[in-house]
């Protein structure tokens, strides 16, 4: 009974924050944005990304850590590239995949990376390449969302967070507690090496009001 009450409350909260129609619009916008981002990535690196249908979820900042764990499934350790963006549209872009898979990722693109990267030691090479791929995908994805919603954002430099480290904790702590964020997630697969990962765009609560209006406006042009 108690549980039922909680989930009912949660549902009401969700409906209030984002209507089903607005969720559908956001889902398609994320689909377009990440599709475009992978094509942008293919321009610089010979890589093929298998896409999936995006999922839109409203989550409490307190559940964020659990949300990432849940999304990672069987993987215990995550390698996260996080990039903050600011504007009307405010939030974080996360590029997440299992720690250790970076080695395979490096193998895929070894031929296309520049010489100065090759002179770096293996571990830092891996980190640099993942940072770069994460940066391209997050930037292109968030950039396309902003473009479709008729706004522009500025980015802070990408940060790497490896495993359940102090960086991970301070990332989670950087969110205002007890706020609701919108998580737009697309799971993808780097086909050559069968590496699964996902990208999440988290919209801060302060942007949700703006976002709702922008989504409605976006759809008006297609009436």
């Amino acid at each position, binding site marked *: 009974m108690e549980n039922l009450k909680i989930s009912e409350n949660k549902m009401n909260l969700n409906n209030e924050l984002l209507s089903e129609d607005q969720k*559908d*619009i956001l*889902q*398609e916008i994320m*689909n*377009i*944005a*990440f*599709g*475009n981002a*992978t*094509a942008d990535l*293919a321009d610089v690196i010979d890589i*093929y*990304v298998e*896409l*999936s*249908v995006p999922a839109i979820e409203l989550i409490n900042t307190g559940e964020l850590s659990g949300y990432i764990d849940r999304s990672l499934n069987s993987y215990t350790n995550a390698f996260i590239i996080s990039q903050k963006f600011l504007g009307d549209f405010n939030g974080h872009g996360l590029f997440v995949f299992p720690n250790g898979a970076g080695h395979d990722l490096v193998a895929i693109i070894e031929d296309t990376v520049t010489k100065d990267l090759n002179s770096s030691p293996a571990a830092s090479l891996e980190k640099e390449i993942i940072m770069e791929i994460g940066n391209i995908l997050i930037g292109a994805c968030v950039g396309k969302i902003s473009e*479709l919603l008729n706004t522009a954002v500025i980015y802070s430099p990408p940060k790497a967070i490896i495993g359940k480290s102090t960086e991970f904790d301070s990332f989670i702590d950087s969110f205002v507690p007890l706020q609701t964020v919108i998580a737009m997630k697309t799971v993808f697969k780097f086909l050559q090496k069968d590496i699964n990962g996902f990208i999440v765009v988290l919209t801060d609560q302060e942007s949700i009001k703006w976002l709702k209006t922008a989504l409605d406006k976006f*759809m008006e*042009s*297609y*009436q």
Partner: protein
Amino acid sequence: MIQKILIVDDSPVARKMLKASIPKDKEYEIYEACNGKEGIEKFKEVSPDITFMDLTMPVLDGYKAIPELRKINPHAIVIVCSADVQPKSIAEVFSLGALTVLKKPAKTESVQNVMDQANGKLKNLREQNESKQ
């Protein structure tokens, strides 16, 4: 000339956006399906003149649905309308027999262009059929 249009896309928003971009020069019969499997059923049922096909869909994706449509009708005109515009994806759908690829969000102008292209193809097919008879 195009009369019946089938739109296969899992997103109701994407279907709405595409419908809004279809030229208003005449009244088309527009049918919709929300995944590849439903798309195949609808295709059998209404025999559309052209099919707009998304790629990333649950149940059955566009890559698997296109060959099925072409099995039912080897001359089926399929226009892929997708957010997945990686060069490899585009090459793949062309090899499956798609007429062309529209990048989402599709503009009215490009929808008009592909429909002109499809009309040309339909005309050729009709002429070929007539000369055979």
